[in-house]
């Protein structure tokens, strides 16, 4: 298949899933009603509310979160040349968790249950925690030349954050703990229209930045020495890749909570789908597949007939973990990331 055809096919799949996400759910919106709504026609308030106030922002959130995490995962796998690297290897996700833990457990759960203020405080604290870790990693990356060491430090940062969270839980009330646990389940429905600008804005900027990186990423895939010999300023490229992946992880985790597995698993699906590792096609295809995976998971989580929604993290893990297992089992046969 030609490059354009693949992208078109993946785009169509994403659009289809986008439509299904608007239609399906605890209440099914008939296709005709949906078209009427989109045309601005006269439709009952309930359908209008469900589609525009609930499903539309949720679907957009899933798209950006999926594309963002998949891209962050791909960048990390390429930079570290490690098939099991993902958005969380730098400890950014855990850092966000620490931020949330501090706010819920010190100020008390009341803040989380406050309408408006609650979500904003969660997002801000998660973002703060994630940025602290990201900036630390970026600063260290200037001094540490070896990628493997950087990977280890990222993982250790994650452990430290998780450990502090563990200590905090001892001193927190059951109520606060529940608020934190709730955040840990992940959700695509915390981004309402008034916050969408920020979420979508930052994500799109970082995604566009990633789209500009296929050449350095292809070179990095050969290893740092070869990349340098092909004219790449490796340290600068590494900084940009880390920044881009870190920003995507931070913003998605801040707005949606820690979403597991999409970042690690999607690049593998994409490489299989396009049959190669050339980032010129891998990057856009991976974004589309990441968005589709998130949309699909969101669909499953709100399956008609399910009382309430399943936690999104449970769905992504149930889908992602088998993929990672498959990657490990077939790695020797395929001989690439």
């Amino acid at each position, binding site marked *: 298949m030609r490059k354009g055809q693949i992208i078109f096919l993946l785009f169509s799949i994403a659009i289809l899933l986008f439509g299904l996400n608007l239609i399906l759910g605890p209440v099914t919106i008939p296709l005709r009603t949906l078209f009427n709504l989109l045309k601005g026609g006269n439709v009952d308030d309930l359908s209008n509310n469900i589609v525009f106030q609930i499903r539309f922002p949720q679907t957009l959130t899933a798209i950006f979160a999926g594309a963002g995490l998949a891209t962050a995962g791909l960048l990390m796998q390429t930079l570290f040349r490690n098939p099991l690297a993902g958005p969380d290897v730098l400890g950014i996700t855990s850092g966000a968790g620490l931020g949330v833990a501090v706010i819920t457990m010190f100020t008390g759960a009341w803040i989380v249950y406050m309408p408006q203020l609650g979500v904003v405080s969660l997002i801000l604290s998660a973002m703060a925690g994630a940025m602290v870790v990201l900036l630390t990693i970026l600063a260290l990356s200037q001094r540490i030349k070896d990628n493997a060491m950087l990977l280890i430090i990222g993982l250790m940062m994650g452990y430290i954050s998780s450990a502090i969270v563990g200590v905090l839980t001892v001193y927190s009330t059951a109520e606060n703990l529940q608020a934190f646990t709730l955040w840990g389940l992940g959700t695509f429905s915390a981004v309402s229209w008034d916050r969408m600008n920020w979420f979508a804005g930052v994500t799109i900027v970082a995604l566009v930045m990633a789209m500009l990186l*296929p050449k350095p990423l292809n070179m990095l895939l050969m*290893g740092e020495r070869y990349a340098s*010999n*092909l*004219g790449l300023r490796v340290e600068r490229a590494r900084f940009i890749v880390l920044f881009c992946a870190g920003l995507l992880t931070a913003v998605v985790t801040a707005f949606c909570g820690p979403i597991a597995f999409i970042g690690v698993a999607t690049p593998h699906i994409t490489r299989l789908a396009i049959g190669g590792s050339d980032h010129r096609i891998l990057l856009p295809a991976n974004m589309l597949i990441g968005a589709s995976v998130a949309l699909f998971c969101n669909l499953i989580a709100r399956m008609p007939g399910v009382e309430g929604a399943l936690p999104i993290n449970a769905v992504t893990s149930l889908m992602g973990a088998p993929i990672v297992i498959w990657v490990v089992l077939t790695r020797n046969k395929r*001989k690439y990331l």
Partner: protein
Amino acid sequence: MSTNLLYTNDLGIGYSEKNSQKLLHRHLNLALKPGELICMMGPNGAGKSTLLKTLAGFIPLQEGNAFINDQSIMTLKEKDISQMVSVVLTEKLTIEDFTVRQLVSLGRYPYTGFFGRLTDEDQKIIDLAIADTGLELFSDRKLSQLSDGEKQKAMIAKALAQETPIMILDEPTAFLDLPGRIEIMRLLRQLTVHKNKGILVTTHDLEQTLRFADKLWLIAQGKEMVCGAPEDLLLQGYIESFFAREGILFDSHTGCFRSDEDYSERIQIIGKGITSYWVKNALERNGFNPGGNNKADIQIEITSGEDPEFVITGTHVKEVRTSSIESMLHELKKNNNN
């Protein structure tokens, strides 16, 4: 101006950290000319890789200076070096789902724009690099489907696509079988002759070095580096001295190393040709000294004919006729134990 593609002035190589500097070699004055194939040999840990990395600009030089195209390597940026020196390294590749063509096209990256888009001219150069390495039939195959030798050729094609006057290869024949090793060295030799490239290769393969290299650089820890035509270095005894260690002998007739066992008895081989050569080989391996003359304790006579027999005679042994080298060795050992 000099005719050297690459030369060094009292170069010192090694590693330095904040307060400490570890110099492996100092005062190196080396040169690589166009059309020259240089093999660098030395025991493991001699500093071969460090020298290669320094000359390719991967690690900083510690003292003195090195020049590529008459420009100090210290003033050259990655982009400059990428158009002057191409490398083939020992690193494991993680891009095995790239096709040969995709890999070779990466060699054009120093010349392409922001997104790495290839022009028709680039495509022609890629085609040529693939043809020069004899990979035309493999160009759409994935690297994971290639043999080790073909993979090395693909890496060499990538280096060719870089269109650099200098190529540096770190042990390109290390994991290859004998025909593969010869093929790669022959290819490099052709590139020096037909493309006027200056090529520097590290290797442990003395046989191929003696066959293909214009110059040999010998490097070892704590020794001054020696450079020259391989034959000169061999006759001057340098090759032997650089690799000498307990139990290893260098045979300057064959250009091969062999193990130095304690030779017990001197044996004279009476016979000619290929059979005699391999009898000698078998005796040496088993600790006998086959260099004896007619005063030796034991003679082994190889009878002529289609199925030669090996007749053991000697002053203190009774005559035995054996039909294979294996049984001959058996008899000799039995005799030894008595």
